[in-house]
Structures are given as structure tokens and as C-alpha cells.
């Protein structure tokens, strides 16, 4: 097809995106080479000092990265399993199908900043309903204030909020599957489990990979949940990279340094997402 036409389609979007972003991104790169902070707002040039500090003298950032990897991989994995199961369940042959489908979508539509406040009241250790229930058994789990459980709580809230995202994508995928492979499998006398393993799952692999990657991107930005629920505490036990960058940037106002953190984060994420995508392709598409 004509050389010119393809650019007529691509360029409007690409140019708008670049046009709006070129200054912010360029500025961020420049910012990361400066000492801009609350006291000195300006673009002086301090070379790679921020990066040196980041790699040699900031254990907290790297710890937060490990925590982030744990949290995002766990939540996305759970969301995928749950979202896929739910999509399979309301795929066909269920009463109140429309009701369930709409209901399962709703959590995704709540504003995280606000909904997390509600969750905080739900998990409030002495005034919330969850511990009201547990107190029946004489227990008082510390949902928000113990090192281990606070992570579990963050995971529960994230799973509640974002499983619908997986659910919708996977349900749409299921609904668009061709009928023929299923008929063939039925004729071969395959049961539901074999059908799933040999027909449904392979057919769903591409959409699954796409959904997992985009969720990993979003889950890595996890911030509102942590900020509202625990502020990264107790101690630093639930602090994630994006929350740490937020503290350095918008709380401590070390903008130069937080720009360096962000760009490093960006590069690490791009590399690891590429690797993860390749691994998933290998793992899920065996052929």
C-alpha cells in the first residue's frame, strides 16, 4: 500500500503524544542531572551525582523495588487466576448472567484514592467490621499495622479493585473464541478439564499475555493503596518504589533526585517487562 497513507494513520496519534510529552520527558532527564530541591529550585548541573547516590547509597530504594516485585507479581497472578475463573464461570449457562457480569466489573470503576479510605475503615483494627467478625473468635489480626499482614491487606484491596480488569478482558476473549475447536474436542469425548487445558487455554494465551503485561505496568505504580492504608509502614515494610519516589518528590521535594529515581525505575521496568513478556510467551504458547 501507498507509503504516504500509513503515516497519515499513525502520525496524528504519535505526534500528539510526542508533542505533549517531549517537554516533560526532556525536562525530567535534565532534572535528574540537577540538584533541584525545596531549597534550591533550579537546573544547575551536577552531572551524574544523583545516579551515583542512587546506586551506591540508597538501600531503601532497592528494598522498595524488591517489595514492589513481590507485591505486583503476587497481585497480578491472583488477579489473573481469579479473573479467568470468574470469566469462565459467567461465560455461559448461568442464571442472572447480566447481573453477575456487571457486578464483577464495578470495583474497577471506583476511584482508588477514595475507595481505599473505605477499605481502611473496613480493616480498621478496633472500629472496623472485619475485626468485629474476628473478635467473635477472640482474635484481633493487625491488618494494617503488622509487617506481614499489612502486605496481605494491600494485596486484598488491589485484588478487589483490579480483578475486574482481567475479568473483562478475558471474558471478552472467551466470547470471541471460535466454536469449531470446541466441537472437535467434544466429538473426541473430552471432558471439561481436558477441553480447558487443550482448547480454551491455548486459544486464550495471547490475550492473557497482553492482559498480564498491562496489569503489571499498572500494578507497579501501586501507590494510592499503600499511601492511604499504611503510608508504607509499619517501618518500611509496605513501601513500594512508586511510593518511595512519591516521598522523595512530593514530600521531601528532592525533585532532582526523584527524577533520577523515576528514570532508573522506567528503564528497569522496560527491561523486566520485556523479559517477562518473552518468558510468558514461552511458557503459555508452547507450540
Amino acid at each position, binding site marked *: 500500500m501507498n507509503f504516504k497513507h500509513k*503515516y497519515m494513520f499513525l502520525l496524528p496519534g504519535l505526534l500528539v503524544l510526542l508533542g505533549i510529552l517531549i517537554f516533560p520527558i526532556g*525536562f525530567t532527564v535534565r532534572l535528574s542531572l540537577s540538584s533541584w530541591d525545596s531549597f534550591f529550585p533550579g537546573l544547575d548541573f551536577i552531572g551524574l551525582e544523583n545516579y551515583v547516590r542512587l546506586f551506591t547509597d540508597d538501600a531503601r530504594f532497592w528494598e522498595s523495588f524488591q517489595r514492589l516485585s513481590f507485591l505486583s507479581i503476587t497481585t497480578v497472578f491472583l488477579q489473573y487466576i481469579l479473573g479467568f475463573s470468574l470469566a469462565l464461570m459467567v461465560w455461559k449457562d448461568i442464571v442472572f448472567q447480566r447481573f453477575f457480569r456487571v*457486578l464483577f466489573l464495578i470495583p474497577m470503576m471506583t476511584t482508588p484514592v*477514595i475507595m481505599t*479510605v473505605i477499605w481502611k475503615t473496613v480493616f480498621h483494627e478496633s472500629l472496623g467490621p472485619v475485626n468485629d467478625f474476628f473478635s467473635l473468635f477472640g482474635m484481633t489480626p493487625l491488618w494494617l499495622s503488622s509487617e506481614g499482614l499489612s502486605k496481605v491487606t494491600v494485596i486484598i484491596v488491589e485484588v478487589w479493585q483490579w480483578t475486574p480488569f482481567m475479568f473483562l478482558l478475558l471474558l471478552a476473549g472467551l466470547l470471541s473464541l471460535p466454536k469449531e475447536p470446541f466441537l472437535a474436542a467434544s466429538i473426541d469425548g473430552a471432558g471439561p478439564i481436558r477441553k480447558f487445558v487443550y482448547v480454551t487455554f491455548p486459544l486464550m494465551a495471547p490475550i492473557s499475555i497482553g492482559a498480564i503485561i498491562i496489569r503489571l*505496568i499498572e500494578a*507497579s505504580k501501586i501507590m494510592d493503596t499503600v499511601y492511604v492504608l499504611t503510608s508504607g509502614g509499619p517501618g518500611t515494610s509496605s513501601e513500594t518504589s512508586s511510593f518511595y519516589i512519591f516521598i522523595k518528590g512530593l514530600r521531601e521535594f528532592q525533585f532532582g533526585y526523584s527524577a533520577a529515581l523515576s528514570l532508573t525505575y*522506567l528503564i528497569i521496568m522496560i527491561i523486566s517487562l520485556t523479559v517477562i513478556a518473552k518468558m510468558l510467551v514461552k511458557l503459555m504458547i508452547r507450540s
Partner: protein
Amino acid sequence: MRTFYVTLKYIAVTLWSMFVIAPFLWALSTSFKDFNSVTSGATYIPWVDFEPTLEGWRVLLRSPAQGGVNIVEPYLNSIFVTCFASLISIALGTLAAYALSRFTFKAGFIRNDDITFFFISQRIMPPVVLAIPFFIMLGKLGLLDTLFGLVMVYVVLLMPIAVWIMVDFFNKVPIEIDETALIDGCNPYQAFYKVVLPNSIPGMVVAGLFCMIFGWTDFFFAFILTFTEVQLLPVAIVSLNSSITPWWSLSAAALVSVAPLIVVAFIVERYLSKGNLSGALK
């Protein structure tokens, strides 16, 4: 055996439904409480467990000078910005996605996949650090605290989603459709407009849903880039979060803010049920 599976399925679906609904029910109950009902331990049923009050809801309609936060105008602003930014994102995103799906691009080591990934990668950057450059840029352009400025920023946030969904979608639409149209004498634009576009509406609906959700629930940029002229809903609601966290009015606000999107969810579900969506995503 079959009954066993079916029973299991209904149990699972019911459990999950309860998990989904629980926080909303709690919020609904909390929205009728006051300080004393909240601080005297967990209670659930109005009149039985506690004396209900409409205070939490009234706050949403009062002006700040009367201790409330009027959410009517922010509500309308939010609807406008979300819809407008979603429309632009989908329009531009669909075009770009079509190009990425149908044509081959090559520039040095850059291929189609890399361009697609470039779009998506815009969502990786943590928003925090973009606050200052966006602020400076919009300031220079005179677009701080304007609807247009916000729409511009949101397009950046939303277009990557639209591109990602639509690329997947177009990959699924058989290329023969385009070819037939071209043979029939259409130029590429006519082919796209008359043949491909009508076939891609379901995909655009899903992309639109995601754009609207991400636009509607964004807090950060709305918070940093606006002051008084344009306030969006999440920012208005958060301005209730004073030294005392008002569980009651925040609960009411959470319920109010999710309402319009439930309508959207029904619309999307219609497309799902009718099977119109089949092929929206592979």
C-alpha cells in the same frame, strides 16, 4: 458430577459477589453514621445498631463555608473531561492502531511492535515526577486550571490504552475486508471509514470503557494541575479529608462517584451479551 461442578460454580460466584459488594454495603451503612456511631465500634444496621443521620450526604451538597463540599460542578467537570479526553484518545488511538496493525513500519531497529510498546510504555512512568514539568508547560501555555489543559494531559494518559486495545482488535479483523473495499475502488481512507470502522465499534466500546475508567478515577494530575476554575470530582471529594477523617461523607461520596460508571458498565455488558463484542479482543 455435573451437579457438583454447578453447585461449586454457584458457591464461588456467590462468594465473589459478596466480596465485591461488602465494602459498598459497609460504605452505605457508614454514610448514615455520625462521629459517635463511628467511634463506638463496628455497627451495621441503621435504627437497630445506630441512629442514622443524613449528615454524610448533606455535606456533598453544601458549600465549604457551611462545612460541606459542593460536588455538583466537579461532577459535571469530571464527566466533561473524561468523555472529551476519551473521545480524542480513541479517535487518535484507533487511527494509530490501524496503522500499526495493517502496515509495516521500519526505521533502524524500530519495528511495529516497538512503536506499540512505545505507546504503552507511556504508562510506566510514575506520575509524581511529571508534576513539575507539566506544571511549567501548562503554565507557559496558559492552560493551568483549564478544562483544555486537563484534557491534553489525560489524552497522554489514555491514548496508550486505546492503542493497545485497538491494535489487538484490528489484528483480529480479517485483512480481506480492507482488500475487498480497496478493490471496489475505495481509497485507503474510504476503506477505513466505510468498512473497517463500522466493524470495529465493539472494540472502540471496550477501549472507551477503559479510557473512561482511567480518566474518571485519576486523582494525581487533576489535583496538581487545577486550582479553582476546574475542579474534578476526586479532588473535590478528597478535600473532605480533614484532620478528622469523615468516614460518613467519604462513604457517601464513594457511592456517588461510582454511580455514572455503573451505567457505562451496563452499556458495555449489552455489547458483551449481544455478542457484538466478539472479536473486540482476541
